[in-house]
């Protein structure tokens, strides 16, 4: 089985990289981009039957820093 983990900075945590991307889009002439948030996607190739709580555990312990990041698990 596969799972995909989406890791994003929490709302309210300033994202300097997202801001830089927003500026770059503006300088390319794309108007009306009010905000950009940048995160990461991690794909996991797992043993069949791995529980969602185990995947959440992986996120809490390593894949996300829950001080500044939130995550969402998508089982594929």
């Amino acid at each position, binding site marked *: 089985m596969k799972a995909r983990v989406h890791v994003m900075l929490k709302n309210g*945590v*300033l994202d*300097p*990289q997202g801001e*830089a991307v927003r500026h770059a889009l503006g300088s390319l002439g794309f108007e009306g981009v009010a905000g950009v948030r940048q995160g990461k996607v991690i794909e996991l190739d797992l043993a069949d039957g791995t529980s969602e709580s185990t995947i959440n555990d992986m996120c809490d*312990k*390593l*894949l996300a*820093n829950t*001080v*500044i990041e939130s995550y969402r698990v998508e089982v594929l």
Partner: protein
Amino acid sequence: MRAAVIVFPGSNCDRDMAVALAAAGADVSMVWHKDAALPDGVDLVAIPGGFSFGDYLRCGAIAAKSPICKAVVAHADRGGYVLGVCNGFQVLTETGLLPGALMRNSNLKFICKTVDLKVETSDTAFTEGYNAGDIIRLPVAHHDGNYTVDPDTLALLEAEDRVAFRYVTNPNGSVADIAGVVSANRRVLGMMPHPERAVDAGHGGTDGRALFRGLVGQLALS
């Protein structure tokens, strides 16, 4: 006084740290990240700067889960002293020994220069060689030194006098100009600037020397 310097793949300030500690009188051993235990009788663990595990995933994240870090956390939980500089600070936040996190610098640039720092408290073994209010000059060299912490924890850090150093001119966007913080028991210090790169006249400055001398002196007494 016995000190252990942890070496990860990608550490690059480990030898500077060992030299600075030895010059201050510590008996220093280097400890590889795969070791599961610290040498007997270690008073201080120093986690050096560098790019442990290539900064993969997040700075310090993989190092924080290495076998030796379990022993470092146990050492801190027993009341042992820990100093984390630069990547070492990032590792300490990732282990949870210090609050907050270090994010990408607000200007997105790698910053490598000598900065003015204000010593905010002399009430730690690390900073007792300074006076609160002293301005010292130490090098910074980091891409992810933008300290962030939630408002409640920030208020706690301020109320408990746990901000050790602040930037005089904030180079990286850190909240409240914070350059270094200590744990609740004041025995774990994380800081982005490099005191070990300012202990010899040949470094261009010696303002880091008081940190190592004070620390080694204090721990030798205890």
